[in-house]
């Protein structure tokens, strides 16, 4: 085991490689009540054909020490599932099983994640034909039996303008006993496309891993390349990244509260916020020409300068927009008819949130301190972030945390905008160093974005792992529906507002 900081790169050789048994012993020592499973994946070597020498990489976030423990060990074609002991591993183990045909013995919920063929080898964890693309959604769903039980299936294509996914509700009357969410419809093979990179299309793929989190994922990728080359970016470029991230947070949080208002039939806030979200997106467009921040962030810095005129203009716009936002939010959070629909709906306990590794707004709404800006400050980071949490873990708490974060993000944008000075925008980034591992954690608007890169002997990506916050949080949505009315599903869903393609990659 080796401890590293956020945005740090180390030679792979510095991480001692152990047996699986000794990995388990070390894991036992590191994992405590506050630690988070950041990533767990097979660092595959495409050159080799069989599945004989798989190597498992595990990254555990340790908030107590503000660093990340990296483990490297051998992995056999079957092994005792980690999920049984630490539930946060549950999706990572399913993912590994799907990609490499490795079986985690005793896994309580071993089903495909994205429905694709194995990446290498000739073994499928479910005994399917490895030569054929599996049928998406073809798996055994959990079913509740009984005379008065009925099942409701929704999707993949949904009723609105939204990404596809399949939901199955097991209902007793109006009450949902269990919701199972089966995704994979959006799978574009993103991680595999990154192998052997960076390629010409890598940057645009990063900005579209989850298109509403372009700045988040691009920041993580840029920081990976910067740490792999051993470079630091200048103060202005750092500030602009923060501004981009916070505008992304503002646009989405405001939009989400508008969507919640729409779902409870409170139309004033629904229509105000729908427009105000666009005002934040347009601020990002003033910076870089794209409402989604495409092109704002690049490895080495940023492409766009902010001169005094633009600085003044943006400060004016944010002042006006903040007024409109607060007006819309105050109406929403003071209307008793709204609050009675939010309070107690879709609640998740703190223990469940911890077990599932919920991140971002969803985790903080349950009272967990999950802000990676607080927990894993990078070497260059100097900013301090307050702990913004809810308590009740319900739709209200998720809306409330968003409201707190809207205030905090507004203050950050104002401060960073005012502090911009003229200076260089971007430095040329040297090619990545060979045989290195780099990790970058970015607190995107949905939660923690984790990128991990391993380079080969030529400095190309041997493996690039992406963990979008939605990877953890979809399980939270499923859990929040337990014993709720099925008619509350839209409200619960909006209170999470998760990414399908960020999960499906």
């Amino acid at each position, binding site marked *: 085991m080796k401890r590293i900081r956020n945005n740090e790169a180390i030679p792979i050789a510095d991480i001692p490689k152990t047996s699986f048994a000794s990995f388990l012993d070390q894991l036992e020592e590191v994992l405590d009540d506050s630690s988070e499973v950041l990533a767990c994946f097979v660092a595959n070597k495409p050159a080799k054909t069989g599945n004989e020498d798989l190597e498992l990489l595990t990254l555990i976030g340790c908030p107590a020490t503000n660093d990340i423990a990296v483990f490297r060990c051998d992995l056999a074609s079957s092994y005792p599932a980690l999920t049984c002991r630490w539930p946060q591993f549950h999706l990572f183990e399913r993912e590994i099983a799907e990609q490499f045909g490795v079986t985690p013995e005793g896994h309580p919920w071993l089903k495909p994640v994205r429905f694709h063929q194995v990446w290498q080898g000739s073994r499928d964890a479910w005994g399917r034909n490895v030569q054929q693309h599996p049928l998406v959604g073809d798996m055994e769903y959990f079913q509740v039996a009984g005379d008065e039980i009925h099942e409701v299936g929704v999707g993949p294509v949904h009723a609105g303008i939204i*990404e596809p996914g399949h939901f199955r509700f097991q209902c007793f009357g109006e009450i949902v006993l269990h919701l199972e969410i089966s995704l994979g419809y*959006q799978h*574009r093979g993103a991680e595999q496309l990154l192998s052997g990179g960076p390629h010409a299309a890598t940057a645009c793929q990063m900005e*579209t891993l989850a*298109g509403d989190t372009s700045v988040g994922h691009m920041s993580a990728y840029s920081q990976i390349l910067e740490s792999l080359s051993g470079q630091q970016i200048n103060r202005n470029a750092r500030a602009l990244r923060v501004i981009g991230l916070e505008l992304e947070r503002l646009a989405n949080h405001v939009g989400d509260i508008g969507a919640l208002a729409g779902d409870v039939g409170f139309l004033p806030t629904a229509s105000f916020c729908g427009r105000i979200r666009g005002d934040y997106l347009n601020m990002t467009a003033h910076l870089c*020409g794209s409402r989604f921040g495409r092109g704002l962030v690049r490895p080495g810095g940023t492409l766009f300068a902010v001169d005094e005129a633009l600085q003044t203009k943006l400060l004016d716009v944010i002042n006006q927009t903040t007024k409109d936002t607060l007006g819309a939010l105050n109406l929403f959070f003071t209307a008793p008819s709204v609050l009675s629909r939010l309070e107690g709906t879709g609640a998740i306990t703190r223990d469940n949130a911890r077990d599932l590794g919920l991140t971002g707004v969803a985790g903080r709404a349950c009272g967990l301190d999950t802000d990676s800006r607080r927990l894993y400050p990078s070497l260059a980071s100097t900013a301090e972030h307050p702990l913004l949490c809810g308590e009740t873990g319900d739709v209200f708490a998720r809306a409330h945390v968003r409201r707190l974060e809207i205030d905090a993000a507004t203050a950050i944008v104002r401060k960073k905008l005012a502090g911009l000075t003229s200076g260089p925008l971007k430095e040329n980034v040297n090619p990545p160093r060979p045989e290195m591992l780099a990790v970058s954690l970015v607190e995107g608007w949905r939660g923690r974005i984790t990128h991990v890169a391993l380079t080969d002997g030529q400095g190309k990506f041997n493996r690039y792992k992406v963990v979008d916050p939605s990877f953890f949080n979809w399980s939270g949505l499923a859990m929040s529906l337990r014993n709720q009315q099925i008619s509350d599903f839209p409200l619960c869903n909006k209170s999470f507002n998760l990414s399908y393609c960020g999960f499906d990659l």
Partner: protein
Amino acid sequence: MLSIVRERLRQGYRTSSFPKTEPVLSERFRGLPHIDRSICQEKCPDCGLNCPTEAVSRQGGKAVIDLGRCLFCADCSACSHGALSFTQDYRLAVQTRQDLLLSGEILTLAKALEKEMLALFGRSLKLRQVSAAGCNACEADTNVLGTLVFDLGRFGVQFVASPRHADGMLVTGPVSENMHAALMSTWAAIPSPKLVIAAGACAISGGPYRNSPKVHNGIEDLLPIDLYIPGCPPHPYTILDGLLRLLNKRK
């Protein structure tokens, strides 16, 4: 109640007067590409060399930009001599794949539907939206047309919840293998005659995921397309402009 009315008065009427007046976009907005012919040399070997989607190529000595592939990158590297730039022109929607190949100054924008189709859909067009591995940017900037700023309903266009209620389909995303069947079923469920709109580089050509073994490079080979809307993602006004041209509400 009074506080709601007060807030409504304070926030004011915010629906844009488009298409009567042109929208004001950000100064850095990247619209219709422009090739500076004084720089672009006939036998230049570097044409489109670093373009991530191979959108720029040389055809018959002339540089041609395929708007169906172009991602409008801020750091466009397709011409290392600086002949390529982006204008502020947001009007990009066209009717044929061929029209997306831009070699001169003028883009042949979409024309109104034929008489018979226009009589059916000109005053009321109901669309079903299918995201087939779209990243949620095209989806979000389509969804935004429903907000009070754009107020799509005033043009008689509406996104509906069932293909049975629809006159056409607006597709986003490169079409993942896993969405292929659902996309085709949705298309089959829409009563004829029907329209297909490809919104965004992914739906037209695969976009950044072009040639990934897990995607179909958009709907070009799968469905007959009536309107192509380029962009990554297209600006809401680009989408709206395209829809209005199709419905003969803008020329």
